[in-house]
């Protein structure tokens, strides 16, 4: 099949620019599902429905949503629902579009989740860089309050629900649910030691349901059409549809919603195929964290991709053609993880720092034959030992680049240069070029002794 199956993206595709307005949403029957849930279903019925639908989390881990809700203790109050809208996985841009162009579907999903878990307060953790999405969600929330869909006694029931919009401030790791909670509490966004899991002790130590934007946006259609309808789509273990963010060297990059199990080939075709008939070289099937693939005849569902040695992750697919330098690909990816590492645990903090250094040497023709094995050792040194999955992810990406394209790495070392030089501009080393926090400059990529560090404002008067 070469068809999209538009469910969560239906409204925003059918209506044009103003698909995000309350008026459009109401024309399209928005909030009826939420009303049904709150006024004519018990919380447990909703949880059972979601369990039966087989809906799996769409933020990356793919954990069955209904099951996760089942862990939440009934007797502990207050409870919270937190929306993970910190979409930062490189290649992923589905949550952004869903929130920018159909925020009411998301709010409706939040209401359903909040009712099911009896949470009277929900937080949307919106990635800091998403100005427009935040602007539109802010307006949509205001409209929803205006219509009585939020606030006290929603839909005339006795159930109160407030939604608090909270902006991140630039940190990929805050997408990791426990880091997100620390960030939302005003701390450094560093992952928490688990157990206890957020469902038991989450925000402010209270039971907390954390779901991804796309996951919550899928809820209204399930309440409307029922579990059976949802199970019919996709595969047995991965029912339903998924919005895949397709980018790279394709003709029509964008979000494509298809049922789970659709092959990469079909998705590539939906995206208009490779640009000017260029040859496909490598595929990132599930965001920067996912190991690479080279073939397109893999079905996109959790199981098939796992069997193919990679993962579905956030559903970000990057197709790369043969103009791509895989050393640079490894470098760009690893630089990302180094920059976004929270610095909490040794293997991720030091391992990514080291790998970047080695990759930079190779890319600039200063590689040594032993460097490839060293890179693999560094990957092994991180994999399975880091505090949270970010470190693991960094090692998987690194390892698969080196393993699959080792000859290309060797070529860099042998020719003492990047054979792809000039293809897409020099790979200039971006010392300190990346976004800087209030921190002491991007010390992570400072080479010169104390550069950008000793001079910092809050160090004056220090030192001896």
């Amino acid at each position, binding site marked *: 099949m070469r068809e999209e199956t538009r469910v969560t993206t239906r409204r925003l595709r059918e209506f044009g620019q103003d698909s995000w307005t309350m008026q459009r949403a109401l024309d399209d029957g928005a909030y009826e599902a939420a009303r049904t849930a709150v006024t004519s279903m018990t919380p447990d019925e909703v949880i059972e429905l979601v369990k039966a639908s087989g809906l799996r989390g769409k933020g990356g881990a793919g954990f069955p949503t209904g099951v996760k809700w089942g862990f939440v203790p009934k007797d502990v109050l207050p409870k919270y629902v937190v929306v993970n809208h910190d979409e930062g996985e490189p290649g992923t841009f589905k949550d952004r579009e869903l929130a920018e162009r159909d925020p009411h579907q998301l709010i409706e999903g939040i209401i359903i989740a909040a009712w099911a878990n009896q949470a009277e307060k929900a937080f949307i953790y919106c990635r800091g860089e998403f100005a427009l999405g935040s602007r539109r969600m802010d307006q949509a929330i205001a409209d929803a309050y205006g219509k009585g869909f939020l606030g006290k006694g929603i839909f005339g029931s006795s159930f109160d629900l407030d939604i608090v919009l909270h902006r991140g401030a630039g*940190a990929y790791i805050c997408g990791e649910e426990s880091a997100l909670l620390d960030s939302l509490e005003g701390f450094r966004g560093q992952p928490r030691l688990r157990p206890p899991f957020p469902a038991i002790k989450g925000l402010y130590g209270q039971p907390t349901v954390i779901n991804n934007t796309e996951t919550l946006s899928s809820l209204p259609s399930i309440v409307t059409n029922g579990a059976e309808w949802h199970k019919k789509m996709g595969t047995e273990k991965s029912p339903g549809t998924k919005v895949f963010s397709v980018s790279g060297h394709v003709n029509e990059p964008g979000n494509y919603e298809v049922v789970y199990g659709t092959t990469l080939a079909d998705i590539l075709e939906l995206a208009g195929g490779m640009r000017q008939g260029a040859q496909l070289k490598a595929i990132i099937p599930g965001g920067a964290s996912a190991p690479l693939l080279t073939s397109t005849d893999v079905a996109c569902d959790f199981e098939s991709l796992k069997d193919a040695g990679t993962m579905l992750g956030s559903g970000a697919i990057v197709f790369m053609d043969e103009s791509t330098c895989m050393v640079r690909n490894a470098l760009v990816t690893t630089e990302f993880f180094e920059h976004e590492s929270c610095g909490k645990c*040794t293997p991720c903090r030091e391992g990514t720092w080291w790998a970047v250094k080695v990759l930079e040497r190779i890319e600039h023709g200063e590689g040594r034959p032993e460097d490839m094995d060293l890179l693999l050792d560094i990957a092994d040194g991180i994999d399975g030992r*880091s505090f949270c999955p970010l470190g693991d992810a960094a090692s998987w990406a690194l390892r698969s680049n080196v393993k699959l394209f080792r000859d290309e790495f060797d070529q860099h070392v042998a020719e003492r240069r990047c054979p792809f030089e000039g293809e897409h501009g020099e790979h200039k080393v971006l010392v300190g070029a990346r976004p800087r926090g209030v921190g002491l400059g991007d010390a992570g990529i400072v080479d010169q002794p104390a550069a950008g560090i*000793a001079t910092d404002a809050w*160090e004056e008067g220090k030192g001896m």
Partner: protein
Amino acid sequence: MTSGNEVVNVTINGLETKAEPGRLLIDVAEELGIFVPRFCYHPGMKSVAVCRMCLVHIEGSNKLLPACATPVAGGMVANTVEESAVDAQEGMLEFLLINHPLDCPICDRAGECPLQDQTYAHGPGTSRYIEPKRTYEKALEISELVVLDRERCVLCWRCVRFSDEIAGDQFIQLVDRGPGTQILTFSDEPFDSYFSGNTIQICPVGALTSKPYRFVARPWDLKAAPSVCSYCAVGCPLTNEVRTDEVVRCQALPNEQVNDFWSCDKGRFGYHYVDADDRLTNPLVRDGEEFIPSSWADAFDKIAAAVEGKERIGVISGGHLTTEDSFGIARLARDVLKTSNVDSRIQDAGAPYDRVLEVAPVAGSTAQIADLAKARTVVWIGPDPKETLPVLYLKLRHAVLECNTKLIVVSPRATSLDRCATHVVRSTDSLSTDAAIVNDIGDPLVVCWGPASPGEDHSASFDAARALVAKRGAKLLVCPPHAGSQGAIDMGVLPSLGPGYEQRQEAGLDTRAMLEAAAAGELDALFVFGADLITDFPDAGLARRALGSGVFTVVVELLPTETVSHADVVLPSAAYAERTATFTNLERRLQKLEPVKAPPGTARQPWEICAGLAARLGDDWEWLSFDDVWADIKKQVPTHKDVDLAAISQRIPESTLQYESQFENDAQQGDAAVAGPGGQYPKGFRQGFPIQTGQNWPLSWELRAFEARQRPGYVPPLPDGGDGASASAPASSSSSPQRGDGSFRLLTGRLIYDEGNMVSRSVALRSIQRKPYLEMNDEDAKELELADGDEVVVGANGTQTTLAVAISDIARGSVFIPYDQEGLRANTLMAGVDPHVEVRRP
């Protein structure tokens, strides 16, 4: 440790053991003698599992798990030396070392450095890292005591967690992120904590070092012995560490019953007095205006000549004498000098410790520090513990924050405890009258009482505590000020109590009465042991008149003081680092001091001096050693008849860690091995074989601490009966009436760093000492049209002085002035009990 609940079987490296479920694998392994390498884990704090050094293999888990965050469960089979675990340990060390400067040759930590030790034991031989290392500006002085070197830091977060979790002084934090993550303070705001030194001790590398100790010694040149802090009544066990016979460092020794792993910076950095140039080394005898050095025999002759046949004699002892000294002093006074004028209360003059017997079988605590965490409610009636009993403050804070104990603070002025208290009241009356408070008082209840403001009539606050204890059958924690205070009470250095709290029919004179007698010329001789009456007694004028009255005065001291300058005979005393002795802390816990160096000159221990004098005056006690004194104490002091001296110094249970050197079986090492370097790395297994460590590789603190944790000391059991149920309700306390126009009740109290004789000898501590100031209620300030920071003139009995006003939460009609800061001694403003001062605008 072993609480009654059930235990499960756990297997670690093939060794079977039993442990309570939920205990951390890393601890259980350690007790088996298996040391799991670690950086971030510290037994005194919560696990964060960030360094990933302690990853171990656990059957049934597909990932390695951090032993520091993995609770043991029934049937768990763990392996810390299996291929994958060892590989991870090696890998982690390689990661940690790529950015470590390896400047060990100039690093204070080298030689006792956990990173060094563990690299040696578990690390890779070489590094494959060829790129430039991460660099930061080195050696930032983040306070007068602590120096930070971020390049050496391994980001274990211990210092940050300590400051956050234990001390509550969040001045040192993690800054930036990823590979740029570092430890830092904010701008020019110093790491301004009374407990900062602990972070130096627990730093597993040389990132945090001690400014006073920096570059002073190498660990392997140090000789160390376990001792006990001689400052406050908490009695934190400390090491005294000497290089070429000079004390250069003190570090906290762990005792879970007392201080966990911590000490305050006063105890840690306040050691310089021991080797002060002006230590008294020989007896001095007055000759007209000057002192001439003399032999002990001559000095004793002179004393004998002066006291023989005299009745009107007084004996005053300071708060810093050991249990043995106090026993000697009490015996000298009563049996030899035949006087009951003997008292140990100076700063706390008049504190009714003897009246504790009305509600307890002892004139001291029936509670122990550990009870605070078990209590549902703790009532604090006393001074600001953060200033006067710092580590007790940590314990109270911990009880509230971690054990959900409700805290009720009763104090006429704001204390550091207020912010974690459920109720704060400025008058003791509220304890019985305020319904909300009465309802919140639940059992188990611990009432803490200590004399708060020198010079005040302490009976009011005591009556409140006593009433509560009597009514609720609560446990009482008596909090006297100094390291020796409780020992003095136990040994009978009180006018009304003999050794073992024996009630005397007719009480002798207390300190104030003795001084008044002396001043009135009604005293023939005055013996002063380790006390500077003129700075310490809450009426400087009276002390001066007394000592100036020409009464024959004998002073036993460490250092020259103003009191010494009035003496007729001066006898030099040995200091605590030089002695085998015991201190009795505020729980009545006996802990042992061991000597690490010889006293200067011919200085002697106060108990030796007492015995010597007694012999000279015809009563030979045959005290030649510490053990002789104790044999006598056990005979004469009923409460102490069963004290087991072995138990005091013994480690319980015996350490299970084995060293390749077998030094744990080496008698000579004795307890020095506990505290001091010179041990060796414990035997572990690596791919089945023993670790090969170097010869005499100094033991890192990780292990020394583990060893020493097992010296609990000994608390004499409570005699049965007489738990004072009979106690009648006290007269309700009414804080003394406010006198009109500009006259204020004077509250004072010691701050942690002051002009005190011993502490002020430490340059670093003296440099962060606060200047004198005056605390005043804002209403009162308004009436006087004073604002925060304004200058006021304070006057009393003739003296006048100008101070800056600090508006604070203090009872109306009262002002607070610190007791002894540079430039003003509050006791010069005092006359009589419950002193008042005039306060006016300049």
